[in-house]
């Protein structure tokens, strides 16, 4: 504003930097996509950034239906389905439990409930390595070792800390007077939840579901420890596919597989980014 020229130079610098970094963040996605449409010959002769000369779906088809992930060679399809079977019940259960917990912890506090909340909050931070071994024992005792059900259980148990935190921090802002008034009118615990809390809960349900979906879909640690042949989630299968060294390395298949594994959460992010970011900040910073 003072001197117009330096002002413009400054703006140019700002936009230049922002654009350069946009390219930095986009580059891996670009490389993954272009590589996945090349054939292996083109990968060897061309370079990383070149567009595919002769786009082919070969890598995608192989990644989905016939690539080897260890001793089996059925592609990612069955593991994609495993992930779906793990994610759907785990997200629903942990979200519902979290909503009820949050409702109690925000509006029906009793002696000890704050302590319980504190302990649960702390649980969000523990490194899962300290529970891996005993949890493996428990799953074995329950006959759930290497099963999809076992993985659902684990994700629900350790996801509830987060979902409770989300709902509790959201419900705290619902006026307590509303609850009191409803109580005077004779409304019950569940009626109040159903008629006062549920109707305003859409945003927090969205945030929580997206958060849980992303967390569980992207999980690798629980997946690799608690799954067996045939029940692995997609992240574990992807890792096996990439690190299986049978025959020549097919980078195009690796990349197609990576995109397939990333696609569900990427789509959620693209279509519901606002809620995703809210979940990140709520989950990370404590509301």
């Amino acid at each position, binding site marked *: 504003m003072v001197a117009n020229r330096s002002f413009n130079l400054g703006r140019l610098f700002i936009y230049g930097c922002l654009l350069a970094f946009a390219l930095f963040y986009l580059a891996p996605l670009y490389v993954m996509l272009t590589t996945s449409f090349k054939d292996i010959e083109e990968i060897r002769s061309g370079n*990383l950034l070149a567009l595919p000369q002769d786009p082919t779906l070969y890598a995608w088809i192989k990644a989905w239906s016939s690539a080897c992930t260890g001793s089996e060679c059925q592609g990612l399809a069955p593991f994609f389905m495993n992930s779906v079977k793990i994610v759907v019940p785990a997200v629903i259960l942990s979200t519902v*439990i979290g909503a009820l917990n949050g409702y109690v912890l925000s509006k029906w506090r009793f002696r000890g409930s704050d302590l319980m909340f504190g302990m*649960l909050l702390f649980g969000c931070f523990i490194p899962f390595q300290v529970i891996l071994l005993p949890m493996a*024992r428990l799953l074995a005792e329950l006959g759930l070792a290497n099963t999809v059900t076992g993985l659902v259980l684990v994700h629900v148990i350790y996801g509830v*800390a987060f979902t409770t935190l989300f709902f509790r921090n959201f419900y705290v802002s619902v006026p307590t007077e509303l609850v009191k008034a409803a109580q005077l009118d004779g409304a019950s*615990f569940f009626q109040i939840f159903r008629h006062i809390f549920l109707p305003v809960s859409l945003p927090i349900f969205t945030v929580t579901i997206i958060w849980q979906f992303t967390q569980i879909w992207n999980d690798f640690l629980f997946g690799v420890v608690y799954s067996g042949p045939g029940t692995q989630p997609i992240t574990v299968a992807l890792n096996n596919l990439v690190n299986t060294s049978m025959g020549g390395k097919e980078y195009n298949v690796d990349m197609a597989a990576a995109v397939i594994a*990333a696609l569900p959460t990427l789509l959620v992010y693209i279509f519901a980014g606002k809620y995703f970011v809210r979940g990140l900040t709520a989950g990370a910073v404590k509301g």
Partner: protein
Amino acid sequence: MSVSKAKKPMTLESLLPKIVLAPTTAVMLVCMYGFMIWTGALSFTKSRMLPQWDFVGFDQYAKLFANPRWDVALNNLVVFGVLFIAVSLLLGLFLAILLDQKIRLEGTLRTIYLYPMAVSFVVTGTAWKWILNPGLGLEKLVRDLGFENFEFRWLVEQDMAIYTIVIAAVWQSSGFVMAMFLAGLRGVDDSLIKAAEIDGASKMKAYWYVILPILRPVFFSAIVILSHIAIKSFDLVQALTGGGPGYASDLPANFMYTYAFNRAQMGVGASSAMIMLMGVLAIIVPYLYSELRGGKNGR
């Protein structure tokens, strides 16, 4: 505060809040705190394949710290942690400040910076493994540009592999730090900068002396979150380097996994997990303490 405090006879209805919370409380006590204690106890036994309860004091810890592989993992954690946190903070702050200059397309740019956060570390590792591939990746790209002697093979170099983890982790998490700082900046009153500028300070100085101090809490939170990510990092290493070459890029979480589940050395695995827990505690306890106290004062 609490609604349920009104004096009423004990009815099922009045017990409902406790009943609703009971399962979570029980599961939490067993599966978080109970398991923590279980692992702690296990770390004092000589368990290998299966848990067994012959207590051997600190033997496993002694073994752990005598293990060169654990030494490498701890060193890597320091190198990785410091670089990952520092670079993510600087980059995140830099981008947030730039984005805060009334930028066109701000929404689009934010979306681009943040999307890696939606992707799993395994995917990130796979992508970067290909990009950093010696022979066909970045190295070849630069050579094709005419720099024929260009070498970039960190992925397979003992001393450098850990830095590839830093690159990929920064790529994945710095957008998130940007979002935190941007949210913080949006909370700062514009007139503060204007006032500083009227007083003759350059924009740079205004940020340095006026805005950054206000953003202190954001720095604090970001550092806690990033160090938490660093200590728990596992998937990225597994996917990008597999801990290799050899075990040169192992982090403690990878060490724990290898010993507890692949090498049937439960005692060593448990003791390494306990060390990780203590590392997290050292960061989280002061943080939660100040957060909870701050919350009470603030509200």
